[in-house]
């Protein structure tokens, strides 16, 4: 995994939009969405790789908070999803 920007709390990130062939822990409703990093949730072997029977090193995991309106088009609540860093790309602040 190559990443030029270190992730940090408060940073805005966009989730991967693709629908992978096999197992993933990026829920469908949170794909291709922009959220805010809340907190690191440790590091764990990437579930996508483990499900394919591949050995994997621990990868950083984050609590990422989304506005419901950004996920579903409506709602005034937030949804905080726990996501591997592999699913996330920092959003350039203009």
């Amino acid at each position, binding site marked *: 995994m190559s990443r030029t920007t270190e992730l940090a709390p408060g940073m805005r990130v966009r989730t991967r939009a693709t629908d992978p062939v096999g197992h993933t*822990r*990026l*829920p469908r*409703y*949170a794909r291709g969405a922009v959220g805010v990093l809340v907190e690191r*949730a*440790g590091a*764990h072997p990437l*579930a996508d790789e483990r499900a394919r029977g591949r050995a994997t090193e621990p990868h950083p*995991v984050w*609590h990422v*908070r989304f506005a*419901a309106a950004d*996920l*579903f088009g409506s*709602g*005034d*609540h*937030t*949804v*905080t*999803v*726990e*996501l*591997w860093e592999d699913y996330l790309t920092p959003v350039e602040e203009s």
Partner: protein
Amino acid sequence: MSDDHASSLISAEVRHVEALLESRGLLGAGEIDTRIDEFLAGGTPANGARIVAHAWTDPGFAARLLADANEAIREVGLSMAGGLQEQRLKVVANTAEEHNVVVCTLCSCYPIALLGPSPSWYKSEAYRSRVVRDPRGVLAEFGLELPAATRISVWDASAESRYMVVPRRPAGTDGLTEPELAGLVTRKGLIGTAAV
């Protein structure tokens, strides 16, 4: 998982693998059941209630609990290390401004070793799919009508952490002892589908 798998293909496969492991002496007869029983032996909502009551009466503990729940619950003799490896516990606290509710949209992740088996509704397709989209409506169906000004935060246990909610301490409970306070806390309160 929400369904009964006793007659499913995966159950047959698991039984077959178990039999192979036993026939090769890698696994004792009944060892898996014993390990599962051991894993579940200490899990009960009473553990969560005890943690909540202690947090209500000790603000320092409450702060430590929200910052690092795994370390903090050791202070009351509990641990998330009951399984093969210690699971990360994330505790979130309700306030007058914000209400938290927990779901696992992908399957049914829950702090089983700490709180015991999850309720059946927690594993239902309906709860898992609806509470992320319309938590206010789902909570109302549970009988929890939140003020319009109360923000709702839904937590999806989509990776390796397990979650527990600290409900708000009910009014008029100043004179109660810690065990009496613990008696007020329900399993739904620890998930966020009830006020306490």
